[in-house]
């Protein structure tokens, strides 16, 4: 079957919520999945980038769930963190006008909604035209794809008449400790965060949105994350980062509605009503000097982090989820969790209660051409009510023992608008 025919098959699938007896997933299978995962944020239904045969066993099972695109908040923030990330930062072309940008955001909304429900971005009707969808995700399971967008501070300059719509909290981050930023991985007018359990599906989403925007937007930079480093739901196991330690044990979880309202969702405090229900996304590209880290002896590694490596338990005792006791003394007369341990300095206890929702991914850009060592580490992403939360935490980390092994090399901040109802489009309220 040709790619075009496959795409047609694909496009015959019904939108989520409707059940067709012809080419959609069987009702029986939908019910099974609903029974397994329930309704709500985890799984919206069973679709996926099915190929011709719906009955192949390989097409069923893990990876075929979708996450609802529409909702009060954008998906991809408190959605249980998917395994893979594609993150694109884009700039609006110098030739683009306000209306071009507004139209693009509308077009993106439709394309993103289609992709999130497991459909290609468009149908090929003319064989003499380039394919509407780039096609590489055909046959891949949708893997809970979420597509989340954000607006950078520079979008609100004089170019598009948006200056009056700029939230006062949205600004480039001030200089912060232990950073040496590469302009090639810093800033951006817009961002697209695509997460999926399938790396190709996440990549496909960013690629196709950038392609749709060609002439209006251009890529500033892009990063791929190959493994999640945060749990954002109590139902998820805590993953490990490239240091080999569990990361995000004390993260805010999707189930903690009060904490989300307190620390993550923008509320009535904003001066820009269009942003209420949204969140700020801060991303930092953090290079880890993994070769040096790997040479450090185990006890020192644990002292740097403040947790046991294997169990993830805080050094003050207990198990992974035991609250760290920062006042506990160790056998040698020093605090059990050292004064410069990462988890101490990053803790809400050390920061007047400040918290953020972390949603980062391990990344690699290959090998440093100069040193022959790994160019990789943590592509940090966090969501918060105000970027000042991140600034406070990062300043607290000035004396972090971990700084010997890491360096921040990229940085960006974006205001992510709230979620949409069907029929609404990104940018509607911003440009209203």
């Amino acid at each position, binding site marked *: 079957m040709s790619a075009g025919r496959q795409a047609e098959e694909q496009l015959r699938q019904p939108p989520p919520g409707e059940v067709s007896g012809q080419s959609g997933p069987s009702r029986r299978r939908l019910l099974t999945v609903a029974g397994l995962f329930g309704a709500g944020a985890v799984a919206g239904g069973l679709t996926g980038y099915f190929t011709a045969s719906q009955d192949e066993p390989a097409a069923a099972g893990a990876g075929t769930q979708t996450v609802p695109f529409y909702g009060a908040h954008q998906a991809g923030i408190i959605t249980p963190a998917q395994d893979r990330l594609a993150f694109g930062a884009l700039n609006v072309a110098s030739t683009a006008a306000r209306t071009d940008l507004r139209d693009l955001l509308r077009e993106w909304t439709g394309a993103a909604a289609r992709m999130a429900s497991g459909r290609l971005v468009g149908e090929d009707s003319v064989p003499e035209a380039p394919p509407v969808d780039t096609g590489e995700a055909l046959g891949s399971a949708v893997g809970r794809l979420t597509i989340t967008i954000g607006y950078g501070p520079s979008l609100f300059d004089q170019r598009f008449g948006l200056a009056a719509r700029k939230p006062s909290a949205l600004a480039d981050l001030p*200089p*912060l*400790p*232990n*950073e*040496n930023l590469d302009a090639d991985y810093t800033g951006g007018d817009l961002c697209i965060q695509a997460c999926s359990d399938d790396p190709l599906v996440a990549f496909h989403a960013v690629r196709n949105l950038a392609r749709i925007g060609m002439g209006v937007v251009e890529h500033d930079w892009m990063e791929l994350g190959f493994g999640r480093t945060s749990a954002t739901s109590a139902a998820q196991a805590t993953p490990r980062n490239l240091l080999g330690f569990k990361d995000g044990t004390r993260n805010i979880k999707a189930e903690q509605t009060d904490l989300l309202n307190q620390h993550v969702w923008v509320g009535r405090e904003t001066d820009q009503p269009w942003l209420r229900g949204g969140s700020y996304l801060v991303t930092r590209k953090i290079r880890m*000097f993994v*070769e*040096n880290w790997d*040479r*450090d*002896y185990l*006890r*020192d590694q644990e*002292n*740097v982090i403040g947790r046991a490596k294997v169990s993830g338990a805080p050094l*003050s*005792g207990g198990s992974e989820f035991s609250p760290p*006791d*920062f*006042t*506990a*003394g*160790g*056998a*040698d*007369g*020093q*605090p*059990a969790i*050292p*004064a*410069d*341990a990462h988890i101490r300095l990053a803790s809400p*206890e050390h920061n007047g209660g400040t918290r953020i929702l972390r949603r980062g991914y391990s990344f690699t850009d290959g090998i440093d*051409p*100069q*040193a*022959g*060592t790994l160019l990789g580490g943590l592509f940090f992403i966090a969501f918060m009510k105000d970027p000042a939360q991140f600034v406070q935490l990062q*300043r607290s*980390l*000035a*004396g*972090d*023992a971990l*700084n*010997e092994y890491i*360096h921040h090399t990229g940085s960006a901040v974006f205001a992510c608008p709230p979620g949409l109802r069907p029929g609404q489009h990104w940018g509607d309220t911003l440009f209203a």
Partner: protein
Amino acid sequence: MSSEGKRRGCRGAVVAAAAALALVASGCSSTGTSTGSGGSAGTAADSGKSSTVKIDLTARGCEPKPAKIPAGPVDFNVTNSGAGAVSEAELRTADLGKILGEQENLTPGLSGGFSLTLQPGTYKVSCPGASQPHWTFTVTGKATGPSWPSNPQLAAAVQGYAGYVKQNTAGLVSHTQAFCQAIDAGNLNQAKMLYPQARVYYERIEPVAEVWGSLDTQIDGRWENPVTVASRFIGFHKLEQLMWQDKTLAGAPKLCAGLVTNEQQLLTLVSNAQYNPLEMASGATDLVNEAATGKISGEEERYSNTDLPVFAANMEAAMKVVSLLQPYLQHQDPGALVLIKQRNDAVTSQLAHFKASPGYDGTGYVDYSTVTQAERRQLSAAVNALAEALSKLSAQVSA
């Protein structure tokens, strides 16, 4: 290098603070406010039988009850039943120079505490703002310590290391003073020649100096660490920036004088410091790691490109540790010594390609910016291989 915020003093350090005679561990503050009662009682329970000391903050002071306890884990329970002017209790070394544990922000009605394991000696309980702010606190009994001091080879290695560090810190001070004289005389060219000569002394003692994090930052901090704030960018690298990038000595004499003051303070601390074999070995790896990251990339001496002499100083100091530990390792792990020697030879022969006489700014080496990417990568591979071999030593010497 710049510590990038590294502060090993607070986690089982190379060095223990010297001020308190019998204090083996260096002290780091352990803070935490408890809004409930009970503080952190029992947190040191796993280290043996713990003592409890009660401290009530009053306008008069902070008398510890009891004022004398046996060595071991101890919980300090601090309450403030109504002293408006006093809100903090600290346990300090007898000379008040170092805070070992503290409970801050205890306003009237609040209680809290901290836990420590204490060696025998005399300490002070301090409460700023009280009419008597310092109270004597005594810990009795026998000091418990590690077993390595009873091994003559390890003990000799540690003693030799203490001498090496002290000697190089003294050299740092005298060479920086000479550097400052050239600055004071307005002789930019001579100052540029003397800068790397002073730097190499620091690069030999770096893992030790990093124990005192803030001092390390003041002496050796780069722009980006730890705070990226201009007013705190005041050490060697600020002077480097002035001389090479801004091509001026304006403001340099004052900065240089401050640098010497900080170095003299470091010398005092280093002279009284205690060392142990584990952190000696680990420090050797850190030195080579540092060369592998900061120097290979050229970040360390980014304005002057005098990376090669400080790179060599890192290697030299790492191998000094190996030679001090050699008598012990010869029996313990002769194979590791052979491997380290081979890999160090490989680094030395790489480095030899870049030697020059008199060299760039009299350093004996070429300008690092002329070293090609391919050459840097070869050097990096050799350095990483050496660091990997060195990293195996810490387990061998941690008896």
